[in-house]
């Protein structure tokens, strides 16, 4: 399993892929950062990193499918999946190896973004708890999106289609909360409640305020696991019907 994980991480850095996505991510992050500073009022000389996270996440979420689109679709297209289907490892191991590889690439990007709090620290002060919780919430939210992206990639043998499906799913993830707040859904309290259970944005809200809640942590981990288990089922199902 480690061999597959290592190979996956390497493949991101052997192609320009990881670099391009990292650059875009940092660009989005720096734009939010600049925006935050320029909007600072002379009376209130502080801004929140959580807001920057939220803003950059709003744009960055659409880059995640670009990272995940190749995971399974590419292998299916070039018929290289036989190498791990015939190797002495199980499908769950394969799915987790690939998921952790993308998560690692993402984690590295987040490490790069530490540059911004450092600048802030140089010229002022940073509230530690808010920053740490902001990063944690951001990372957990991204894990859910990565898992969904991996699942979309397992559904098709065309990476572009996987990216398109992924984008659609990301829109659903990010706008679920707004949708729940709409008048139509609010008029149906049961539906609103059910949608509320799956709303990732409200869960992230707690983290962004510097609050660490075990329930929210469990929520993100559970959703990620459920999506990954679906991915395992999808791949097993496809194994039955492949020619």
């Amino acid at each position, binding site marked *: 399993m480690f061999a597959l994980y290592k*190979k996956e991480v390497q493949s991101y850095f052997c192609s320009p892929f990881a670099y391009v996505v990292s650059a875009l991510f940092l660009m989005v992050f720096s734009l939010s950062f600049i925006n935050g500073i320029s909007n600072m009022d002379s009376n209130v000389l502080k801004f929140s990193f959580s807001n920057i996270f939220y803003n950059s996440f709003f744009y960055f979420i659409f880059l995640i499918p670009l990272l995940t689109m190749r995971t399974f679709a590419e292998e299916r297209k070039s018929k290289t999946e036989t190498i791990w*289907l*015939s*190797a002495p490892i199980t499908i769950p191991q394969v799915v987790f190896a690939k998921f952790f590889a993308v998560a690692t690439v993402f984690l590295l990007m987040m490490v790069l973004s530490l540059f911004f709090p450092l600048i802030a620290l140089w010229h002022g002060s940073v509230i530690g708890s808010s920053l740490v919780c902001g990063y944690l919430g951001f990372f957990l939210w991204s894990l859910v999106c990565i898992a969904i992206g991996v699942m979309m990639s397992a559904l098709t043998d065309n990476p572009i289609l996987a990216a398109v499906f992924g984008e659609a799913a990301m829109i659903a993830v990010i706008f679920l909360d707004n949708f729940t707040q709409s008048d139509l859904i609010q008029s149906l309290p049961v539906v609103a409640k059910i949608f509320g259970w799956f709303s990732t944005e409200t869960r992230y809200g707690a983290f962004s305020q510097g609050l660490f809640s075990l329930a929210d942590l469990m929520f993100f981990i559970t959703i990620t696991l459920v999506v990954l288990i679906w991915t395992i089922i999808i791949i097993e199902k496809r*194994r039955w019907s*492949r020619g």
Partner: protein
Amino acid sequence: MRILFIIAFCCNDERGFAENMVEIKNLTKYYGTHPAVKDISFTVGDHEVLGFLGPNGAGKSTTMNMITGCLPSTSGTVLVDGYDISKDPIEVKKRIGYLPEIPPVYPDMRVREYLTFAAGLKGVARNDRQKQVENAMERLHITDVQKRIIGNLSKGYRQRVGFAMALLGSPKFLILDEPTVGLDPTQVMEVRRLIQDLAREHTIIFSTHILAEVTAVCERVVIINKGQIRAEDTIANLEASVGGDLKLCLKVEGEITKVTDLIRNTDGVISVDEVEFDSQGVNAFTVTVASEAVRKPLMSRLIAEDCMVLEITTVKSSLEDVFVKLTSSSRAQSREDALEELGKELDAQREAEEAAKKAGSAEQDKTSANEEKEAED
């Protein structure tokens, strides 16, 4: 002593005696309602090279995918070394090296990097990996391309990289799905030699639709068609099973219908099985004859009729005949029908000619009689 015996028996695990072999029992695979493989059973013994033969789309790859655990079967089991693929897939996969039809190589990796990754994936111990990778590269003669990116390699090299991958982890069984497809003749020879060489350490199942390959490498063959086993025997036995008739191949210059007619009507010729175009005005006839003695009358008859015999050889019945007989019954049938039709046509033509001749001669008689009458008048 007795205690030792008991201990020995107790230690003997439940896998029983089915060691060192692949046992395939009633393997069936349905894609929806379409059966791809139906009730296939055979075994492969220790250090055996088994040829798996069949035309395209016969179910070879499906069967191989099921043996390697890439594809679950609808019913039936595969036992490798006594382990059931559906119950202990990991144990089975540890013992199998698989080279699929399209080698599963990542085009963006370097050869050495890829093989090291594959060795890791197959659970080769870290300190043993480099040694195994080097051995495999040497065996396949790819050491000189080890630093190149696989995507830039030719088809033959990619095939060899895939082959090297299958050898990693020193598996007991090698499953090779059409290992020589897309290789040039020298590489094909090399791969055949390699398979013979590997047979000393491994048990090999390999599929192909090239018959010369099977005759060169295997001891035993399984022939499948439309998902079912048509034959399973040694090559010698299979050849003997169809080797009843003596066949001659004649290359004759002359008009096709005339020559066919001449050959057919020579004593001792049982049938004309095949007529193939050879070159301008020359056709090759495959003829079933009663004995070698037919050669002489056949030759003299053809020469007498001004048909040049360019070549006459005895056709040795081969695996090819077995294969054609077992796999393309419908095609052979239609060819036989065509020949029969040609025969009927020729008969009809001859009858018509004879009738015309008769009528001609009758008319001639008539006219000559008339002439005589006129002369008398």
